[in-house]
């Protein structure tokens, strides 16, 4: 089973990289870009075949390592 983890800075946390991308898009002539947030995607191959168990273990991975929950939020997709 594959898991895809999205890690994003929380909404109250300034994302200077996203801001820089927003400015660059504006200077390329893309109008109306009101905000850009940059995050990361982590793909994990799991031996587990039970979706509920896989989700539980990936959530634990996020809490322990993949995300820093002081500044980041995460979401998990299984498929």
């Amino acid at each position, binding site marked *: 089973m594959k898991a895809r983890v999205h890690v994003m*800075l929380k909404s*109250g*946390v*300034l994302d*200077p*990289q996203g801001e*820089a991308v927003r400015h660059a898009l504006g200077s390329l002539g893309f109008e109306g870009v009101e905000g850009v947030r940059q995050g990361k995607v982590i793909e994990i191959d799991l031996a587990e075949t039970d979706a509920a168990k896989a989700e539980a273990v990936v959530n634990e991975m996020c809490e*322990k*390592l*993949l995300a*820093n929950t*002081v*500044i980041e939020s995460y979401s998990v997709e299984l498929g």
Partner: protein
Amino acid sequence: MHAAVIVFPGSNCDRDLAVAFERAGARVSMVWHKDTSMPEGVDIIGVPGGFSYGDYLRCGAIAANSPICRAVVAHADKGGYVLGVCNGFQILTETGILPGALLRNAGLKYVCKPVDLTVTTDQSAFTQGYTAGSTITVPIAHHDGNYFADEATLDRLQAEDRVAFTYARNPNGSARDIAGILSDNRRVLGMMPHPERMAEPLHGGSDGAAMFSGLVQQLADA
């Protein structure tokens, strides 16, 4: 006084930190990241600057989960002293020993230059050699030194006099100009600036030396 300095793959200030402790009169043991315990009788652990594990995932995140960091957490939990500089500060926040996190610099640039710091408190073994309110000059060299914590945590740090140093001119966007913070028992200090790189006249200044001499004095008496 016996200091342990941890060496991660990618540490690059470990020897500087060891020399600063030695010049102040400490005995120093270098400790490899795969070790699982500290040498006998260690008074303080130095977590050095650098780019542990290439800063992969997040600065300090992999190091914080390395075998030796469990020994660092255990040392701090039983009231031991820990000094984390730069990447060491990032690692200490990732372990949860210190609150908050270090984000990408607000200006997005790696900043490497001497900066003026205000010594915010002299009420710690790390800062007792300074006068509260005085200004010292110490270099910074980081890409991710933008200190972040929620407002309640920042209020608590200030109310409990746990902000050790602030930037005179904020170089990285840090909340409330914070450059270094203390743990609640005041025995763990994390700071982005490098006192070990301004510890003798040949460095261009020696404002960092008082931290190491103060620590050696306090921990030798203990």
